[in-house]
């Protein structure tokens, strides 16, 4: 293969594809819209997290429960003293949470009997449900406080009635939690590779044959291997640029989100960004080799489109690994696409990559891409393909 010829073919294919609206817009649209959808999803997570803190209750009989009201307010719950029957309040405000303290409750409380106060809410609404859980927990903790005071007043060790207590220690570092929440990002970027390369991969292979320019091209003194490689690299470049743009846009959008509300510290330094962009290169090459080789197998342009559109769904397989939750196995670190996702996630989480596994992943990817390129080159120059025999 001749580097000069390769460059001639590559630069022509890039120029040609840049003038093809379909090749350009698919990638651009994905790079712009993909991250938007992603950040909208994160944003709603942040909202629901904030909801929990912003719980509000309507307190019926507030005059009988000053201590409870003060406790709730101290924990950030907005307490609105209300009058009337809980049923009526609920009918007027279906999403409200109503806490009703009756005179009987107050009497029970004074007489050291358990006061069973009523909590009214529509538990079919998920937002209400998270707020109710919080209010319930706060009422419970107020009850415990009172119990401790009563026991101390009577000279009883509080531990008698409360033999066990659990304190949660979240061992996940901020970085790993971020990687968990942002675990969808690498899959998005990998999809960008496939989406950005699809149209050009079809256009330079089956499309060139369909427009009957392939025969004239193959009649020139450049080998089929050089022509295939030039076309393959052009498709790789489109896939890569789409993925890189998706990376940059999504990171930009994320930096504008109040992720700290989820307890996530999200920041990437320049080295991490460079590592992310570098880690996408091998997969971009492999994906485009697969797309070009597959498009060359199709009998018609339409058939190629069907295959390659299906191939775009391949990154969805990554979700399975993502949500299995188990730590990645060695196979996951070596298999193409899965290993690339693992690498991207690790870089995002600020973890160090294992060099032997990285080398294995690169090796497997290179062998697979090389094999596909060899098959594609043979197919491109074959009588059967050129003349549709």
């Amino acid at each position, binding site marked *: 293969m001749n580097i000069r010829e390769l460059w001639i073919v590559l630069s022509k294919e890039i120029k*040609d594809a840049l003038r093809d609206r379909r090749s350009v817009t698919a990638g651009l649209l994905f790079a712009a819209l993909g991250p938007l959808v992603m950040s909208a999803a994160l944003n709603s997570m942040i909202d629901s997290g904030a909801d929990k803190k912003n719980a509000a209750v309507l307190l019926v009989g507030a005059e009988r429960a000053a201590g409870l009201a003060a406790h709730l307010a101290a924990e950030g719950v907005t307490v609105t003293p209300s009058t009337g029957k809980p049923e009526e309040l609920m009918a007027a405000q279906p999403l409200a949470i109503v806490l009703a303290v009756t005179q009987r409750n107050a009497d029970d409380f004074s007489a050291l009997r358990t006061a069973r106060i009523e909590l009214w809410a529509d538990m079919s609404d998920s937002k209400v449900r998270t707020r109710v859980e919080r209010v319930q927990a706060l009422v419970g903790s107020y009850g415990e406080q009172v119990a401790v005071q009563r026991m101390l007043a009577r000279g009883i060790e509080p531990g008698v009635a409360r033999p066990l207590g659990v304190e949660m220690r979240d061992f996940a570092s901020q970085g790993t939690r971020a990687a968990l929440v942002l675990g969808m990002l690498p899959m998005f970027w990998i999809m960008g590779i496939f989406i950005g390369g699809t149209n050009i991969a079809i256009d330079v292979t089956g499309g060139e044959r369909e427009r*009957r*320019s392939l025969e*004239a091209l193959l*009649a020139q*003194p*450049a080998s089929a291997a050089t022509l295939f490689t030039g076309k393959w690299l052009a498709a790789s470049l489109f896939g890569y640029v789409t993925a890189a743009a998706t990376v940059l846009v999504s990171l930009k959008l994320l930096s504008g989100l109040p992720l700290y509300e989820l307890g996530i510290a999200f920041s990437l330094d320049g080295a991490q960004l460079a590592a992310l962009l570098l880690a996408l290169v091998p997969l971009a090459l492999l994906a485009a080799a697969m797309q070009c080789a597959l498009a060359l197998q199709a009998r018609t342009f339409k058939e190629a489109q069907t295959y390659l559109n299906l191939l775009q769904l391949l990154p969805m397989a990554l979700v399975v690994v993502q949500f299995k939750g188990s730590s990645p196995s060695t196979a996951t670190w070596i298999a193409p696409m899965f290993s690339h996702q693992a690498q991207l996630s690790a870089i995002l989480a600020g973890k160090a990559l294992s060099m032997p596994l990285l080398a294995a992943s690169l090796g497997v990817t290179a062998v697979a891409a090389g094999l596909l390129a060899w098959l594609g080159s043979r197919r491109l120059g074959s009588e059967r393909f050129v003349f549709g025999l």
Partner: protein
Amino acid sequence: MIHVHQVSKRFGKVQALSNASFNVPAGSITALLGPNGAGKSTCLRTIYGLLQPDQGEVRVGDIPVASAPQAARRRLGVVTDEFGLYERLDPRDHLRYFGKLHGMSGAALESAIQRVIDELHMGEIADRHAKGFSAGQRIKLALARAMLHQPAALVLDEPTRGLDVMSTRAVRDALHRARDRGTAILLSTHVMQEVAVLCDRVVVMARGQVCYEGDIETLKARTGSTQLEDAFVKLIGSDEGIAA
């Protein structure tokens, strides 16, 4: 310059070429004349090495095409049956791309591009995208592209199909000039009239076989016909697929 020697090619059950032999000398225009399906395109494709003959050999100069296709293609200019243009590129883009693939570059390439643009009167369309080109504009560009590197031999698959009078004349003039410079030219056609005005020699093909090779006068004399068309019909035994 082009030597086709006892070439056979079979596609499944169809014997596209059987034992075909002929030569295209330098400084001549040879017509490959035959009805549709006679094997003309198959024959041309073995010359530029996109089809491998089952038997026989094709040489360009002294280069065997089968074993050295790149070297052979370097000496060839090819116009394929659909011309094979890129819709989103303009003629200069086309010429630059193919010129570079033939190893041309820099000022030599640019002056060669200007030369073929002038020679084929393509100045007006030189900077327009090829999408929407008329048949005449398409053939001019395809021909300019094939002639850019001044090949020793030109191979053209039905170059005058669907052309109007002016375009036909422009193509004819360009081919005559190339012949006068010593280029060996082989063009396939099923249009009889074209052979008489454009070509010096004729190779008649039917059912994959060469049934005549030589000059037009000898063909007429051999078949006892004064008209080329009659001579042709006598030779292949049918008038199927031939346009006057």
